[in-house]
């Protein structure tokens, strides 16, 4: 059984006992424990179930590479699935549940899959579940979905109780990884005076070095690390962050780091995670290396662990993984685990070393001296046990398995297949790798680094991440990395380390090397996704020869650990099966993030009310208090209508239309886009942008203009006012302000950069109120301050003046067909003016109106609406707006496009009015059907509805639409289909101007 040793544990504080639960069972750990170490201390070897076969799973690693020990953490609004126990720091009150089993972790019905495993090899689902056809959706897929997945989904109805935030940092050097290499590099870089940010994913500095031991500059390595840390902390230009993982590296020195602020102490105030968004001149990846498992039968049984992880558990957390641990290895490093176990009084019955070496290396000799039996040239034939290791059967490594030489009882197997540098971050942005045959690992190719805008390398690896495997080499490379990053040449030598000389590793990808198919079917590569050696070989046999094919066919490396333990082993098996060299087969692509990061952290602060903050006009609050029914329009809200007590939406809209037509309506038009276009060439510029002539407009006058894109399609409309010789104010649609501004800048900056024109978006600088209806002039006269008479301010004119002392600019324009003034004021005056208009307007029956009334009134008048009558495929000619297209101008945006064959086509659909025969309202977007079907069997259509409303003014449905030969077919009845495609509505083609055809109302 696994248990806590009586002494030791460099990271735990035995005086601080912490209580936690696992599957409801109350257990106790120590401060400084991870959840994994605390579970092991309580003999909880079984921690989860695998994805496909529901095999029992125990912890195999001690860090971010862990594929097995995943738990659901927390409860309710703080529940989180798929948390690695190895990177979860224990806290008092922690509550964890294991995953992917039913009814319980110990007795999982799904484990029947393990019995059927022979029938469920890689990719079996591509070959089966095809008949009967309907069964995929209704039977097979639901069953597969239920058994797949890992953790439970968080509750849908509770919002995440935690908050998140983003930090932005700009540094000269970002060093990722706070092991001894990262610390040494950061110190060297810090000494140059540059700004340095050093991040470390765990809560501790020093990485593996304190566990692996050794001496640097005559001091124990732990003291040397403490010295480095002290030096770094003393530098003002260096920032250190622990619990902060380098998550991804992107183009141009952009990097993400993921800081876990309160996962280890959930009662802390403040955000849970912080996403660092970093621009760095140079990035150093001191990300260490990950030990590889060995592929032997039963290597997935709980109790089989990485040799380095066993060492970590003993040294860091004083865990005995069992009284007897068998070591199996192809290298010297695992001997350190044997020695550590021995030094804590634990038994190591055997070291099974696949190598046959002529002489003992230093570590071997030390192990032998401690009385440990070393079986050279041997292998594990299979591991005995089901839910935990009972022992190992050993055989000759050269054989094919089955010829068991000896069975050795044990509780733990510590395996080591060598080390793989963590090259993920190096690779994210295009860093390339070389295969190092001697060490059997991929390491960064420094000549093919990720490059920046000038072709300069901006990422450099340091230490084990660069393939340096001994303490001395790591420190040497850390100093070299600092030089590569800073460009400074060496000022002092690398610190000297005392290290044992190790015998070379021998690559072992399968154990024993000729393992039979029965062995290979039980030798796991990817523990979480249940991919075995036999699966990868099957993929190769079936022609999935590309490493990407093999990955996708078998799901190797696609689990939550993204293949940190399995990729290289799987790749080696694949290349073996193909008879190819490992570098020829290549790796799959490394993608961010290094380990999964929370969606909450990605979203950051932008949640709920401040997810896309609402833009508010100066009158927003008044409208909100007085019954506005809001609708989102771009980033604004506009009132659909302003309801009075007891009214339905429809009643409110009809009242607003009626009152505006009969008395006086007020519209908050502040959202209307307002762009100042200024400069000597402003007129010339607007002549190019609008289809009509703007340069001839006189100061003091307004003109309605149309804007087309390069393809001739109508993109925006609005009233342009000429303020003075050099200045125009262009009104755009509410939704169009930003992109029309961008459109103008695009042309000014890219094409007409030598024109004297400047554009400023002043949309928010002004409030704008439309005063509309027969009483519009009366209310302005009652307020007083400027002459708004018919003679003084004619239709399509504007004037500056004052109303009750408020400086205003009044435009005499109308979008409703009524007498109308649009009054622009500085935003800070808008509310005052609104209140004034509301109070003085009382005697004239003033009422505010919303967007729906606005739309109805413009439709009654036959005015087009961008986004209704236009959809990016409509040209002004389709809307009978020929009058707004200049014939005199040599060029304007869209002019040449309008000459293209399809634009000049006679049979383009044209704008007409539509009246249903029965007076009902046509459905929005309905199509008019023609005769027969087209070559693809679709019903032929001859037109469509673009806007449709009930007109309270006319007491019937009115609509506008685009119809084939429409203007030539006045009075004809055509048929519109409902969404069932068969029910038809008859509508008569009429003039689109339904109300006040001669414009008598607006010209009073």
């Amino acid at each position, binding site marked *: 059984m696994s248990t806590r040793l009586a002494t030791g544990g460099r990271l735990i504080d035995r005086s601080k006992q912490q209580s936690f639960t696992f599957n409801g069972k109350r257990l106790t750990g120590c401060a400084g424990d991870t959840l994994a170490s605390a579970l092991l201390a309580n003999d909880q070897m079984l921690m989860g179930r695998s994805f496909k076969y529901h095999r029992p799973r125990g912890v195999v690693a001690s860090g971010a590479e862990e594929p097995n020990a995943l738990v659901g953490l927390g409860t309710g609004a703080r529940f989180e699935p798929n948390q690695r126990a190895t990177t979860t720091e224990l806290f008092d009150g922690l509550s964890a549940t294991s995953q992917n089993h039913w009814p319980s972790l110990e007795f999982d019905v799904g484990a029947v899959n393990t019995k059927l495993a022979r029938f469920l090899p890689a990719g079996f689902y591509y070959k089966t579940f095809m008949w009967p056809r309907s069964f995929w959706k209704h039977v097979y897929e639901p069953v597969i979905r239920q058994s797949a997945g890992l953790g439970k989904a968080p509750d849908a109805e509770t919002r995440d109780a935690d908050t998140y935030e983003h930090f932005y940092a700009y540094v000269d050097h970002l060093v990722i990884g706070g092991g001894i290499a990262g610390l040494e590099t950061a110190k060297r870089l810090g000494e140059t005076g540059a700004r340095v940010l050093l991040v470390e994913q765990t809560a501790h500095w020093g990485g593996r070095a304190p566990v692996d031991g050794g001496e640097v500059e005559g001091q124990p390595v732990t003291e040397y690390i403490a010295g480095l840390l002290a030096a770094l902390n003393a530098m003002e230009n260096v920032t250190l962050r622990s619990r902060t993982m380098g998550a991804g590296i992107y183009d141009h020195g952009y990097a993400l780091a993921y800081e876990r602020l309160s996962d280890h102490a959930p009662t802390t105030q403040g955000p849970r995670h912080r996403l660092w968004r970093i621009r760095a001149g140079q990035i150093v990846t001191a990300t260490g290396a990950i030990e590889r498992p060995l592929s032997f039968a039963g290597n997935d049984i709980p109790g089989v662990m990485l040799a380095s992880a066993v060492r970590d558990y003993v040294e860091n957390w004083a865990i005995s993984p069992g009284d007897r641990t068998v070591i199996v290895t192809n290298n010297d490093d695992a001997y350190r685990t044997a020695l550590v176990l021995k030094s804590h009084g634990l038994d190591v019955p055997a070291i099974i070393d696949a190598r046959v070496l002529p002489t003992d290396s230093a570590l071997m000799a030390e192990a032998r001296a401690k009385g440990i039996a070393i079986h050279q040239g041997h292998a594990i034939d299979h591991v005995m046990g089901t839910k935990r290791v009972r022992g190992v059967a050993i055989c000759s490594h050269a054989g094919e398995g089955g010829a068991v030489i000896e069975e050795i009882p044990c509780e733990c197997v510590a395996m080591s297949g060598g080390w793989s540098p963590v090259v993920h971050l190096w690779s994210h942005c295009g860093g390339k790798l070389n295969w190092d045959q001697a060490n059997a690992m991929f390491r960064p190719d420094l000549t093919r680094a990720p490059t920046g805008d000038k072709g300069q390398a901006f990422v450099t690896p340091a230490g084990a991440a660069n393939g340096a495997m001994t303490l001395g080499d790591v420190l040497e490379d850390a100093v070299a990395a600092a030089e590569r990053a800073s460009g400074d040449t060496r000022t002092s030598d690398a610190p000297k380390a005392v290290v044992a000389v190790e015998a070379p590793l021998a690559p072992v990808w399968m154990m024993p090397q000729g393992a039979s198919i029965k062995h290979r079917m039980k030798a796991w590569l990817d523990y979480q996704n249940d991919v075995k050696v036999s699966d990868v070989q099957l993929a190769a046999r079936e022609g999935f020869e590309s490493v990407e094919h093999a990955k996708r066919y078998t799901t190797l490396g696609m689990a939550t650990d993204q293949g940190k333990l399995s990729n290289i082993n799987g790749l080696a098996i694949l290349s073996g099966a193909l008879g190819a060299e490992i570098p020829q087969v290549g790796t799959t692509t490394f993608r961010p993030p290094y380990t999964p990061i929370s969606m909450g952290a990605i979203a950051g602060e932008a949640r709920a009310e401040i997810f896309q903050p609402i833009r508010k006009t100066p009158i927003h609050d008044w409208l909100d208090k007085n019954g506005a029914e809001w609708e989102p329009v771009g980033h604004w809200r506009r009132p659909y209508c302003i309801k009075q007590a007891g009214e339905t939406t429809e009643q409110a809209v009809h009242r607003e239309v009626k009152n505006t037509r009969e008395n006086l309506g007020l519209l908050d038009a502040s959202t209307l886009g307002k762009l100042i276009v200024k400069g000597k060439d402003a007129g010339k510029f607007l002549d190019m942008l609008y289809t009509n002539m703007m340069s001839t407009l006189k100061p003091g006058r307004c003109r309605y203009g149309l804007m087309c894109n390069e393809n001739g399609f109508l993109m925006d409309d609005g009233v342009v006012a000429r303020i003075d010789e050099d200045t125009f104010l262009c009104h755009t649609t509410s939704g169009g302000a930003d992109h029309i501004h961008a459109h103008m800048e695009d042309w000014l900056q890219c094409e007409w950069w030598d024109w004297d024109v400047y554009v400023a978006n002043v949309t928010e600088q002004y409030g704008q109120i439309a005063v509309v209806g027969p009483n519009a002039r009366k209310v302005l006269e009652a307020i007083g301050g400027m002459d708004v008479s018919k003679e003084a301010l004619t239709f399509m004119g504007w004037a500056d003046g004052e109303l009750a002392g408020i400086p205003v600019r009044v435009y005499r324009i109308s979008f409703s067909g009524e007498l109308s003034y649009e009054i622009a004021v500085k935003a800070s005056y808008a509310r005052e003016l609104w209140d004034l208009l509301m109070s003085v307007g009382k005697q004239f029956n003033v009422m505010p109106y919303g967007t729906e009334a606005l739309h109805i009134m413009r439709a009654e008048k036959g005015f087009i609406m961008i986004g209704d009558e236009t959809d990016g495929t409509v040209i002004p000619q389709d809307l009978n707006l020929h009058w707004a297209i200049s014939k005199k101008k040599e060029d304007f945006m869209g002019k040449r496009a309008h000459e*293209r064959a399809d634009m000049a086509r006679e049979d383009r659909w044209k704008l007409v009015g539509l009246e249903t025969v029965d007076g009902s309202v046509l459905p929005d977007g309905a199509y008019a059907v023609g005769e027969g079907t087209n070559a693809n069997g679709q019903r032929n259509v001859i037109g469509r509805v673009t806007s449709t409303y009930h007109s309270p003014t006319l007491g019937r449905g009115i609509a506008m639409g685009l119809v084939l030969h429409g203007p030539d077919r006045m009075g004809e009845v055509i048929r519109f289909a409902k969404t069932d495609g068969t029910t038809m509505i008859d509508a008569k083609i009429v003039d689109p101007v339904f109300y006040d055809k001669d414009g008598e109302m607006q010209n009073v």
Partner: protein
Amino acid sequence: MRSYSAFAVAREAARYHMGWERAWASPEPKKKYEVIIIGAGGHGLATAYYLGKNFGITNVAVIEKGWLGGGNTGRNTTIIRSNYLQDPSAAIYEKARSLYETMSQDLNYNVMFSPRGVMMLAQTQHEIRGYQRTAHANALQGVTTEWISPGRVKELVPIINLDGPRYPVLGALWQARAGTARHDAVAWGYARACSDMGMHVIQKCEVTGVRQEGGKVTGVTTTRGDIGCDKLGIVVAGHSGHVADMAGFRLPVESVALQALVSEPIKPCMDVVVMANTVHGYMSQSDKGEMVIGGGADGYNNYTQRGSFHHIEETVRALVETFPMISRLKMLRQWGGIVDMTGDRSPILSKTPLEGCFINCGWGTGGFKAIPGSGWGMAELMAKGQSPLTDAFSLDRFKEGRFIDESVAAGVAH
């Protein structure tokens, strides 16, 4: 070709699966083929497949620079739908969707087409009108869609937040027979079927030139030698511009990276596909349990298949608002695919200025769902010189201004 079935799996299990044959052959290129398709992605393989199946043309090579299905076929978000607005789009996407329905049986390869339903949320009045228009158009195009209420949306997607403080859900356009499929399997299934018809799928063979004589195509130059052909189909998505350049013509196409990501797997919590165009994001849950999330396309031209971060942030923000529970899930992996975008965001399936040379490109962000329809139409175009499915998508539409613009209905996400 030996047929796949549960019995075959059982039979092979008895001999430890040692008896499975290759899914597709790995032949040496011949000197000449009747038809060469450049690009062994879904569209290229489907073109070859329907050339054989519908027109009996099997002297075909599909040439691939990398590994088959390794471009956008293997890096999309697997959504299949046909609720398009414009007639030509609806025709080809609906043809594709209907072929997906029987693809597993037709190919004897389980592509896991799952008609789980796709909904497109309306979150503004403008979107309501747009989707109602699409619903009307679809009714006449033979595409079954319906407008559904917020209540029905919640029934179908219990994890959705209807009343987000910013953009409440006002309804949705729902296509019940739309859904997802296993993207890699589509390429693999077609490759296997093509190989079975005697066609050559040649991987790791890069085309370096297009050979022509008297204005007519005669073959291609490749890293594995010259290969002759009577007809050439260029089906290379993001690299269309390069290959067109070899053939001597230019395309109105730009290549940009489209961003996507998946979460860690969780137990089933969402059975349908949801697209939210106002806030720019869409999401479904794979059979493996991952939430598959699509984002926007980068705003700059690019050939690297790398993920960038700003779109991921925007998309995840939008989806955390739409599905608050995903806040406590984690992003497992993000990636990018190079999509070829035309001016009207609709594809090009067309003859080219070079006689005998045809092009299929410009699928932009929406190609996966079109694969079988695109292959069907492209095969007909190459075999007969004309196809009603592809007529409207010819290259000359950009000269004539005859655009097929779906932006009304599609917003950002296809």
